[in-house]
C-alpha cells in the first residue's frame, strides 16, 4: 500500500531515519546511490546484508533492496533477510543477459523497471508485483522518466482502442504475454501499480510524474546528493501528495538549496545508459 507515496534511496541508518522523518512510504537500502555507482564504475552488486539489516532495524516503514537482473540467488538472500520488497534492478550490473528472475517462485514481492509496455508486461508475466518506469538513474534529469511514462501510458491507451482480433498481433509487436495484453486492453491500465523512477530531483519533478499518471515516485540520488536532504525529502513528499496543487508545489520548492548537479543525456553517451539493461 505504497500508492501516492515517495520511496527514497538510502545508504545508511542516518539517511533512512531522515527519509522516514520526511514522510517516505518506504526506503531502498543500497551501498551506493545510483549517481555514485555511475561515477565509480565497476560491478555493482546487492548491498551488504549488514547495511540492509541495520536499516530494517532503524525504521518502521517497509525496506526494499536491489538484486542484479537475473541473479536469483541475491534475490533468495534478500528474501531470507526479510526485506519487504526486492527490486530486480538495472542500476546494478546485470548477472544474466537473457533472463530475469522467475519471481513467481518467491513470497517476497518484486518491483522491476520498464521503459515500455512490452517490458512492463514481461516483468509482470514473470511475477513482478510492482513496476517502475526506469528513467535514467543517477542523472538528476527527469527527461527519460517522462519519456518512459508517456510511452507506457500511450501504448496502454492504444491497446484500449483495438478490436479483439488485433490483440494477438499487438502482443507479438509488444513481445508481451497475450493474456496480459488482453487484460490491459480491457482495463485501460496495468494490473499492478506503476511508479516513476530515474532522474527525479525536485518537488516539481515529482509532481510532474504524478500528473503524467505515476502511482508514486522513487527518488534515488536526488535527495542525498542535494545540499539539504531533509528539507528536500520533505518537499518532495508534499509535492507528490498534492501534485495537482500548483501553489503548494511552488511553496515547498522555495529555498531548498542546491539540487544535485545532474547530467545531460548527451554527456553520458548512449553506451553508458543503464535503461537499456533488461530484456
Amino acid at each position, binding site marked *: 500500500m505504497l500508492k501516492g507515496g515517495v520511496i527514497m534511496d538510502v545508504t545508511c541508518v542516518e539517511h533512512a531515519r531522515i527519509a522516514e522523518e520526511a514522510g517516505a512510504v518506504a526506503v531502498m537500502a543500497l551501498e551506493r546511490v545510483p549517481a555514485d555507482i555511475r561515477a565509480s564504475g565497476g560491478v555493482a552488486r546487492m548491498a551488504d546484508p549488514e547495511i540492509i539489516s541495520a536499516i530494517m532495524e532503524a525504521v518502521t516503514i*517497509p525496506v526494499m533492496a536491489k538484486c542484479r537482473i537475473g541473479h536469483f540467488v541475491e534475490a533468495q538472500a534478500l528474501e531470507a533477510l526479510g526485506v519487504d520488497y526486492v527490486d530486480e534492478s538495472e542500476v546494478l550490473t546485470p548477472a544474466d543477459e537473457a533472463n530475469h528472475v522467475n519471481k513467481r517462485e518467491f513470497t517476497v514481492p518484486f518491483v522491476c523497471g520498464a521503459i515500455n509496455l512490452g517490458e512492463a508486461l514481461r516483468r509482470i508475466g514473470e511475477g513482478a508485483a510492482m513496476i517502475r518506469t526506469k528513467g535514467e538513474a543517477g542523472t538528476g534529469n527527469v527527461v527519460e522518466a517522462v519519456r518512459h511514462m508517456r510511452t507506457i501510458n500511450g501504448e496502454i491507451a492504444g491497446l484500449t482502442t483495438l478490436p479483439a482480433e488485433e490483440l494477438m498481433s499487438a502482443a507479438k509487436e509488444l513481445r508481451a504475454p497475450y493474456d496480459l495484453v488482453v487484460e490491459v486492453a480491457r482495463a485501460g491500465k496495468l494490473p499492478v501499480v506503476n511508479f516513476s523512477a530515474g532522474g527525479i530531483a525536485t518537488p516539481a519533478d515529482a509532481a510532474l510524474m504524478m500528473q503524467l499518471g505515476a502511482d508514486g515516485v522513487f527518488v534515488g540520488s536526488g535527495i542525498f546528493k542535494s545540499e539539504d536532504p531533509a528539507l528536500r525529502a520533505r518537499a518532495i513528499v508534499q509535492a507528490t501528495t498534492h501534485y495537482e496543487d500548483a501553489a503548494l508545489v511552488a511553496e515547498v520548492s522555495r529555498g531548498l538549496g542546491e539540487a544535485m548537479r545532474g547530467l545531460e543525456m548527451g554527456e553520458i553517451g548512449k553506451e553508458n545508459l543503464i535503461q537499456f539493461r533488461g530484456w
Partner: protein
Amino acid sequence: MVERCGARGVAIKRPSGLNDVSGLIIPGGESTTIGKLIDEYGFTPELKRFGAAGMPVFGTCAGLIILSARVKGRHGTVLGLADVTVERNAFGRQVDSFERDLAVEGIADEGRPFRAVFIRAPVMEETGPPVEVMASLEEGAVMARQGTLLLGAFHPELTDDERIHRYFVEMVAEARRPG
C-alpha cells in the same frame, strides 16, 4: 468500491474537504507517513472534531492505527478516537502478509466468510468497554465497531466482496437520518 455500494466517493486532501462529506474512510498505507501528513496539514484537530461529532469514520489497516488511542512502541500522531491498543505490524513484515477467511459479526458468517487480506497488518490487542469486537484472530481483534467508528486491520478494498463497504455506507446513511 463505495460507488458500487451506492455512495459517492471523493478524495480528501485538505481539512476543508471534511465539510463536504458525511462519512470518512482513512485507508491503509504507511501509518508513520499518514500521521506526519495529517499533522502537517492541520488535519489532526479537524479529524478529532469530525469523529467526536458522530460522523462515521472507517479506519482500515494504517487508518485503524491513526484512529486508535494507544499504539505499542514508537509512533507519531494518532487521533485517540477509538478506545483500543494497537500493535503495528503484528504479523511481521511484508513477506508475512496473508489472506484468511473470516467470520465478521453482522457482516459475514461461517457459511459465507469474508476473504480478508492482511498486509503488514496491525491488531487491536486490547479493546475498551465501548468497543464491540466483530472479528478476531489469535493475535487479537481485527474488526470492531465503537459507535460511529468502524475499525479494520485488513484491506477490504482488495477483494470484490462489497459487504464491509456496504455495512459502512449503511452506517453513514443511518447517521444522516434525522432523530
